[in-house]
């Protein structure tokens, strides 16, 4: 059968650029370039000496001095021990909570789930401050109390030790480990467990011989993840460790850039940073292997039946006891301690005399401090602009990754993911260096815009995780139908996809907005007198000796945050981002 020879041949327009698609590509490409650019800046930094802008030959001397200095090894060992303690505290806790909530008939589960899910958001450095007020050898309230009670000569509890800061960090990371492990438990195929019981294997044996082996890949991936978080952690080592001469990787780098005397050592910090980048990237290999393995044991279909939960009977008391003890240690005690200290002129054990001295005097004294108000304003600015930019850029990237057929979309996804394992403080360091370099041409250094930029660049990694997930659920044919109807790609993104992924967009927006509120690590590397935010203001007070004032601002910060977090929690529950039931 031949086609009529008169058929008109109209070439598709090869020279016309599809601006619709190009605009998405430009946005995504800019983000990717920024991420890669900052990482390369760290490596570049490590190969130079002197101050940015000063001519310098390319040299490996930074690495040489790093390797020759026993201090570097001390820092490395300190960091490793710190991470080990953190994992030892957070992972078992997370496992217990996950097991209690997903696998048993614990009463009032929803309360526990919500508190744990939201607990991730509360500022870590505030909890660290609270623990100093509780268990510091000199000013810790609990220590003073015990010493008075038992007539002790020295403080029995010391939080300002490696074990102590590991403990506090572990407490703050337990909710994260709970979220990861519970996802694994929820996805586990119950048929595998039930087959064992049908064949007469008792509950304990099933746990050891069936459940544990099935869940260990997910556990391993959680452990590796916790490790990457721990080695990058700054809040707790910064608040508790630094003043007591305990330096982990993050605080060591901070100290290098903000020394008491001498010039900042950018080159050396770049060397430390490059090693850390390498280490965190290498850690991703076993992470993804373990993750892939854990997916093999998961239920393939979306909704499957859940196995019968373990009946706790009266053991529920122990279950809630554990949860209660955790909430007490992780939230209630430290926050109460902060509140208590904010009311007093100096740290005292709670007593009737102390109560007499308590007042809100501090609050009225600091309330209208102009620097504080400026910091609050800056924080608000960040809380609005950063998430908006993140959502826009993540949409573009996620669209390309999930919907397009471009060959390099996997690489794009990998680049967007990078700021997760790589310590964020390194991005802050790199952008500070870059800003200094161009400070003659573009006056960016010390402004709020550098902070804005690095927050956006780092948290696109979070935004794309959420939006990848959302976009995948939109049926491809909804787009194709629009395409066939003649609608351009950009319009499809705006009018078809965005309305359908709105819950994911809102979730990502609110989460990153609250993250901007609580972030200390990156802010501390970039803040200047002109660009303070609430967290760095408190940090300044803390290290300047104004512990009481720091406590007061912390209380204000938490009071303002609570309604925000609560409304977020209500929203997330309704949108099923937080599971409302284990079933």
């Amino acid at each position: 059968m031949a086609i009529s020879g008169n058929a008109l041949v109209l070439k598709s327009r090869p020279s016309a650029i599809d601006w619709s698609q190009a605009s998405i590509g430009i946005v995504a490409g800019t983000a990717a370039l920024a991420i890669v650019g900052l990482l390369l800046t760290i490596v570049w930094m490590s190969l130079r000496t002197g101050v940015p802008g000063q001519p310098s030959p390319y040299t490996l001397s930074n690495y040489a001095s790093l390797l020759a200095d026993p201090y570097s090894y001390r820092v490395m060992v300190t960091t490793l021990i710190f991470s080990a303690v953190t994992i030892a505290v957070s992972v078992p806790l997370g496992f217990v909570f996950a097991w209690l909530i997903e696998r048993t008939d614990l009463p009032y589960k929803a309360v526990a789930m919500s508190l744990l899910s939201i607990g991730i958001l509360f500022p870590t450095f505030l909890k660290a401050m609270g623990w100093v007020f509780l268990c510091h050898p000199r000013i810790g309230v609990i220590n003073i109390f015990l010493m008075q009670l038992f007539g002790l000569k020295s403080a029995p509890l010391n939080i300002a030790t490696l074990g102590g800061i590991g403990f506090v960090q572990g407490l703050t990371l337990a909710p994260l480990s709970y979220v990861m492990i519970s996802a694994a438990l929820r996805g586990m195929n119950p048929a595998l467990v039930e087959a064992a019981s049908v064949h007469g294997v008792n509950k304990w044996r099933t746990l050891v011989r069936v459940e544990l082996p099935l869940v260990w890949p997910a556990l391993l991936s959680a452990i590796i993840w916790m490790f990457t978080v721990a080695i990058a952690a700054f809040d707790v080592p910064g608040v508790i460790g630094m003043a007591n001469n305990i330096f982990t990787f993050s605080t060591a780098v901070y100290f290098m850039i903000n020394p008491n005397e001498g010039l900042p050592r950018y080159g050396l910090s770049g060397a430390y940073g490059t090693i850390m980048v390498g280490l965190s990237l290498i850690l991703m290999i076993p992470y993804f292997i373990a993750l892939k393995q854990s997916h093999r044991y998961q239920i393939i279909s979306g909704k499957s039946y859940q196995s019968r939960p373990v009946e706790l009977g009266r053991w529920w008391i122990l279950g809630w006891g554990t949860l209660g003890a955790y909430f007490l240690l992780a939230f209630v005690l430290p926050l109460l301690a902060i509140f208590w200290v904010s009311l007093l002129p100096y740290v005292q054990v709670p007593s009737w005399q102390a109560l007499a001295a308590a007042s809100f005097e501090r609050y009225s004294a600091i309330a209208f401090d102009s620097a504080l108000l400026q910091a609050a304003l800056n924080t608000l600015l960040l809380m609005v602009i950063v998430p908006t930019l993140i959502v826009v850029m993540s949409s573009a990237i996620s669209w390309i990754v999930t919907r397009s057929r471009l060959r390099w979309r996997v690489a794009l996804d990998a680049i967007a993911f990078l700021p997760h394992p790589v310590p964020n403080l390194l991005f802050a360091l790199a952008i500070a260096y870059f800003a200094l370099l161009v400070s003659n041409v573009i006056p960016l250094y010390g402004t709020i815009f550098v902070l804005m930029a690095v927050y956006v660049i780092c948290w696109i990694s979070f935004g794309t995780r959420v939006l990848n997930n959302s976009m995948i659920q939109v049926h491809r044919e909804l787009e194709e139908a629009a395409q066939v109807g003649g609608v351009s790609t950009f319009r499809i993104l705006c009018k078809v996809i965005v309305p359908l992924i709105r819950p994911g967009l809102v979730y990502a927006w609110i989460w990153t907005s609250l993250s901007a509120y609580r972030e200390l690590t990156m802010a501390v590397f970039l803040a200047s007198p002109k660009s303070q935010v609430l967290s760095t203001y408190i940090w300044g007070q803390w290290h300047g000796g104004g512990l009481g004032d720091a406590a007061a601002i912390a209380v204000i910060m938490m009071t303002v945050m609570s309604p925000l977090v609560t409304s977020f929690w209500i929203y997330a529950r309704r949108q099923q981002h937080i599971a409302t039931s284990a079933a």
Partner: protein
Amino acid sequence: MIGIRSLRKTFKTGTDAAQAVDGVDLQVNEKEFFALLGLSGSGKTTLLRCVAGLERPEAGEIVLGEQVVSSAERGIFISPEDRAIGMVFPSYAVWPHMTVFENVAFPLTDGKRKLPRAKVRERVMGALEMVQAPGGNASVTKSRVLRYLGRSSAGAINLPDRSWPMPAQRSKLSLSFAR
């Protein structure tokens, strides 16, 4: 008129290759109603998607009307937005966040062959009347709405990709006219 000559489309995954369409020759004339029958997996949907421009065949030619829209040998490929067709998808592809009116009107309000608003209303209401969908909250048979979705756009060619509707399988779709 739809003309297909020596069309070939293969899907590769790793080392495996699935030959979905292998050397198909076909001609459907004007005003002709053509039905493709075949077992599942025989390549019916793939063929329709090639005609729509959602898949790029590696060999063969497709002509729509007077226009060659796809030719692997001559390096021609016109993207789906620029082909004058309508298509009904296997999953129905009804946009859940839009009303019935907006669904039917979407190609006319946002597509490349946009019409002025008055004309859009006229066209859409006409199409919906054919389906007998009154205003207000209306239950409309999915398949009916979509059969005429294609007609509301400027498409001269209609590609309903649905199996022959069995009465028991017709699903009711409740969409409202007003949000």
